[in-house]
C-alpha cells in the first residue's frame, strides 16, 4: 500500500485578495470575481474583463525579501506558499533537503517580457532584468528559493493541466519518499499576449463565464496562485499537524485529437479520470462530487460531459458538479491548484461552492451544477467524501486528481 498523503496547509492569492480568507469567502458565497481589466489597455481587445488580483498589501510586500525583483507570478506564488506553510505550522523552519516544490504555470514572467519587448520596439532602453524569471520554472524556483527548499523542484507548463500535473508529481514524490513535505501549486499572471491569444481563438466571453449553461460563450481569464502543503500522513501525525484532506490519487492522459479542440467523446478526459481512480484504488461509485474543468467554452463542457457519462454511467446526472471557474475565472497554469484548494475547503466544511444563478443548463451536458446557494454534502453511509477534480488542457493534456476527507476533520 502506498504511503497516504495528506494536505496540511493551503495558501492563495486571487482576485478576491491576498490570502485564503478572502478567496474562501467569495467561493462559499458564490461571488464571481471578474471585473474590468485594469492591467493593460483592453480597449482594442475583443473582451474587457478578467479576474485580476488587487495590489498586494504593504505588509505582504514588506515581508518577502527581494519583492521588487520578483515577477508578478513569482510574487503570487511566494505569498501563497508562505501562507500555506504558516497554516501548516512549518514556517519559517521546516524546509531544507526534505522539502520539494512542484509548480505549474503558463504565463510565468510574460507580463514583464511584454514590457521588455514594448521598450525594445519603441527604441527605448529595455533592461534584461525584466526577463530574469521569464521561463516556466520562474514561480516554482522563486518559491523554492524563498522557503529554502533543497529537495526535488519541478515546474510543469502544460497549459490548463499544469496545476493538476504538479499535484500529481508532488503526490508521487511523497509516496516514494523523495520528499517528506511538498509545496504543490500553481501561479499565473494576466498578460496581454494570453488575453489576445484566447480572444483570437474566440474562446473568451465578453461577460463573466457561465459554465454548463446553454448560452455559455467562452472563458474568463483569471490570475493568482494557490499552494497546498502535502506530506505523508505519518509525518503529519508525528508533528501534530492539522490534516485538511487526503490526496488519494492522480491520473493523466492526452487527447491526441487536435491542438485546441477537445476530443468530442471526451475519451482522453475519461482515461485521465479512470487513471486517477485506479491510482487511488477507488471506484466511480465512491465519488461524491466533481470539481469540473468547466471553462464555459462551448466545446469543453460537451466533451467533459461525455467523459463524465462514460465513467459514471447512470449516476452522472446526479453527481453534484462544482464549477469554480464561474467564480475565480480560469487561472490557466494555476487552475488545477486553485480548484484543488476549493475542493479541500469543501472536504473540510462539507459544503459545495455555488456558481451564480443563471440561464438554462445545456441539455447536452446536463450536469447537476451547484448554483444559487451552497450545497451541504449528505452522509455517504459511513464512507468518507471523495472529490474528483479535472483539468483538461489546451493541446489535449488532461489530468485528474482525487481527494478524500481527512480521517479526523480539521478546521480551516
Amino acid at each position, binding site marked *: 500500500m502506498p504511503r497516504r498523503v495528506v494536505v496540511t496547509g493551503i495558501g492563495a492569492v486571487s482576485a478576491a485578495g491576498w490570502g485564503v480568507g478572502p478567496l474562501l469567502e467569495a467561493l462559499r458565497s458564490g461571488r464571481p470575481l471578474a471585473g474590468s481589466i485594469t492591467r493593460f489597455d483592453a480597449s482594442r481587445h475583443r473582451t474587457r474583463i478578467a479576474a485580476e488580483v488587487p495590489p498586494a498589501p504593504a505588509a505582504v510586500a514588506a515581508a518577502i525579501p527581494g519583492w521588487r525583483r520578483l515577477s508578478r507570478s513569482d510574487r503570487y506564488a511566494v505569498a501563497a506558499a508562505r501562507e500555506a506553510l504558516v497554516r501548516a505550522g512549518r514556517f519559517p523552519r521546516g524546509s531544507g533537503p526534505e522539502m520539494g516544490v512542484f509548480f505549474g504555470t503558463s504565463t510565468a514572467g510574460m507580463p514583464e517580457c511584454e514590457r521588455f519587448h514594448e521598450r525594445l520596439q519603441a527604441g527605448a532602453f529595455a533592461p534584461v532584468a525584466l526577463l530574469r524569471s521569464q521561463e516556466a520554472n520562474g514561480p516554482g524556483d522563486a518559491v523554492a528559493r524563498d522557503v529554502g527548499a533543497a529537495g526535488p523542484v519541478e515546474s510543469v507548463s502544460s497549459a490548463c493541466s499544469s496545476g493538476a500535473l504538479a499535484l500529481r508529481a508532488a503526490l508521487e514524490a511523497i509516496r516514494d519518499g523523495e520528499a517528506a513535505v511538498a509545496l504543490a501549486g500553481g501561479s499565473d499572471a494576466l498578460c496581454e499576449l494570453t488575453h489576445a491569444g484566447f480572444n*483570437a481563438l474566440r474562446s473568451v466571453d465578453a461577460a463573466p463565464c457561465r459554465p454548463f449553461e446553454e448560452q455559455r460563450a467562452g472563458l474568463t481569464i483569471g490570475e493568482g496562485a494557490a499552494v497546498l502543503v502535502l506530506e505523508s500522513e505519518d509525518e503529519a501525525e508525528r508533528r501534530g499537524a492539522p490534516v485538511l484532506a487526503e490526496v488519494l490519487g492522480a491520473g493523466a492522459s492526452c487527447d491526441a485529437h*487536435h*491542438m*485546441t479542440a477537445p476530443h468530442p467523446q471526451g475519451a482522453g478526459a475519461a482515461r485521465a479520470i479512470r487513471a486517477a481512480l485506479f491510482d487511488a484504488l477507488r471506484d466511480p461509485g465512491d465519488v461524491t462530487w466533481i470539481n469540473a474543468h468547466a471553462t464555459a467554452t462551448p466545446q469543453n463542457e460537451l466533451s467533459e460531459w461525455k467523459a463524465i457519462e462514460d465513467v459514471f454511467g447512470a449516476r452522472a446526472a446526479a453527481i453534484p458538479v462544482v464549477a469554480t471557474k464561474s467564480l475565480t475565472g480560469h487561472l490557466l497554469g494555476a487552475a488545477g491548484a486553485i480548484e484543488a484548494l476549493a475542493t479541500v475547503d469543501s472536504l473540510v466544511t462539507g459544503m459545495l461552492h455555488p456558481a451564480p444563478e443563471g440561464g438554462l443548463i445545456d441539455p447536452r451536458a446536463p450536469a447537476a451544477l451547484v448554483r444559487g446557494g451552497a450545497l451541504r454534502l449528505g452522509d455517504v453511509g459511513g464512507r468518507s467524501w471523495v472529490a474528483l477534480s479535472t483539468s483538461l488542457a489546451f493541446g489535449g493534456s488532461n489530468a485528474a486528481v482525487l481527494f478524500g476527507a481527512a480521517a479526523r476533520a480539521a478546521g480551516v
Partner: protein
Amino acid sequence: MTDETTLRSRIKRLIVESLHLDGVDPAGIADEAPLFGEGGLGLDSVDALELVVALEKDFGLRIASNEVGRDTFASVGSLARFVGGKLPLAQSASRRG
C-alpha cells in the same frame, strides 16, 4: 474582371498566404469547392479563425463570432458573398467616421 471575380481571387490568395498552404496555387482553388473537412482543402477550426483575422485585416472588416459559421465559410464563393455583403457597410462607416 468583375468585382466579384477580383474579390474571389483576393480571397483565394489570402487563404493560401495566411494559412501557409505552400505549394497550393490560389487560381487552382475552385470557387465552390469545400474549404473545410475531408475532400476539400482540409482546413479546420483554427484555420477558420486565422482566415477571419486575415479577412478583417485585409478588408478592414469586423467579423463577429456568431458570423463565423459553416455556411459562410463553406467555400470561397460563400466567403466572397459574405465579404461582399459587408464591404459597402465598412466603406460607408469609414466615410462617416
